[in-house]
């Protein structure tokens, strides 16, 4: 009997489980076990729309069990520890041995890393925070909204920028933009990381009068003065603060001795295998690869991991590499969007905003769940 254990039932874990099940459906002596503590699977990209009242909270959840192939044994509880030397995981006091382990535990939000942030900030990176922000924005008619990023890395790099552009669009639609000022802060020397798209986005910011401060590395928030303070002492005043909170990897990764200082797994950028344990794979947001923390990345990586594990199980000596493939859908408001595609050796292309790209992003939710269920490419 060979045991494949997957930790985390988000995008990466669920797709990899189904893809493995598809490839190994007729193998009686292979078990695929997925640890996923939440009953419902959330489609995180919709949180952006939800926070801006542009989507319905019921749209984004599906029962995890129903998304899974029958060959996958779902255990709805968290893994508490990983023993990499003796190849087992522990959940609720019970040991589960593995021959192959896939770590798909994503990122956790750690607002406390920035003094003054927790309790004074708003964000849309989890369901309850997105709902709270939606309610606050409904009553916000006048003042300064500061948007941007509190720390790096963070998932979905364009999300703070999309939020800002969609917020501007929405405020204009409701005739509120003249009484609401928008200021966006970002840690590098431009408003976005992908340099060949910056001119397009910069033009949007300039024509829509969105102020921005770049090279703004947040040190702390001063709630009494209503100020965000940067490392070099620069400040920006807010009435409503919407910063993406700091992210870190899960504690079980650090505890197992396979994480870096941020709790992210070090994996080979091509094979996705943990640096010192070839039977352990990392997928999606949990790794420290220099790729976007994005669902598209987890999706592309799942094909590599499912192929390589199933081939190894079946004794087929053929491996494929992850090539850095990333797809990044970026909304800019006015029903327009960009779809950028790139990998380790090709810079992003797809630089013309269009309505078709916007529709692709809106309808992607249905494709996401269908694709996940059937383990499609």
């Amino acid at each position: 009997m060979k045991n494949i254990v997957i930790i985390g039932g988000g995008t990466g874990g669920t797709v990899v489980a189904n893809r493995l099940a598809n490839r190994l459906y007729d193998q009686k002596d292979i078990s695929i076990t997925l640890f996923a503590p939440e009953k419902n699977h959330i489609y995180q990209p919709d949180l952006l729309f939800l926070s801006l009242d542009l989507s319905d909270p019921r749209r984004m959840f599906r029962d995890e069990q129903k998304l899974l192939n029958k060959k996958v044994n779902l255990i709805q509880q968290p893994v508490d520890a990983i023993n990499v030397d003796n190849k087992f995981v522990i959940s609720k006091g019970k040991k589960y041995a593995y021959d192959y382990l896939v770590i798909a535990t994503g990122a956790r939000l750690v607002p406390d890393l920035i003094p003054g942030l927790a309790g004074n900030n708003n964000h849309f990176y989890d369901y309850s925070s997105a709902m709270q922000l939606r309610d606050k924005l409904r009553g916000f008619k006048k003042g300064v909204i500061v948007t941007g990023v509190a720390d790096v890395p963070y998932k979905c790099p364009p999300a703070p920028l999309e939020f800002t552009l969609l917020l501007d669009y929405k405020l204009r639609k409701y005739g509120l933009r003249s009484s609401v000022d928008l200021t966006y802060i970002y840690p590098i020397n431009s408003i976005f990381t992908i340099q060949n798209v910056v001119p397009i986005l910069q033009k949007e910011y300039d024509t829509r009068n969105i102020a921005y401060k770049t090279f703004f590395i947040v040190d702390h928030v001063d709630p009494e003065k209503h100020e965000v303070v940067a490392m070099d002492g620069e400040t920006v005043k807010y009435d409503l603060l919407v910063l993406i909170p700091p992210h870190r990897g899960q504690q079980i990764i650090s505890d197992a001795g396979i994480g870096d200082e941020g709790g992210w797994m070090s994996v080979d950028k091509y094979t996705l295998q943990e640096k010192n344990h070839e039977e352990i794979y990392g997928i999606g947001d949990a790794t420290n690869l220099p790729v976007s923390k994005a669902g598209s990345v987890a999706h592309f990586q799942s094909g590599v991991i499912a192929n390589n594990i199933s081939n190894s199980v079946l004794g087929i000596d053929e491996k494929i590499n992850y090539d850095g493939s990333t797809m990044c859908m970026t909304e800019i408001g006015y029903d327009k969007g960009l779809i950028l595609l790139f990998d380790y050796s090709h810079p992003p292309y797809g630089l013309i905003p269009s309505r078709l790209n916007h529709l692709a992003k809106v309808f992607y939710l249905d494709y996401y769940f269908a694709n996940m269920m059937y383990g499609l490419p």
Partner: protein
Amino acid sequence: MSDEKVTKVIDARGSYCPGPLMKLIENVRLAKVGDVLDLLSSDSGTKKDAPNWIKKTGQELIGIYDEEGYTRIRIKKIK
């Protein structure tokens, strides 16, 4: 090349998003004072952007070295 002991190598070759500078910021924030980091980047813009960021944040740039097909930027966290 300087002979300081490198604490960590950050391989950001082929990174378009988040990009080498973001990886540098992430790692400098996590590093301890005194750590020496090597950033590997295949993006020509990093040669200009990383030193600007290092200067702005008061860290120490040890050196910029051209290697085959990429640049190595060595930085020391001093505060």
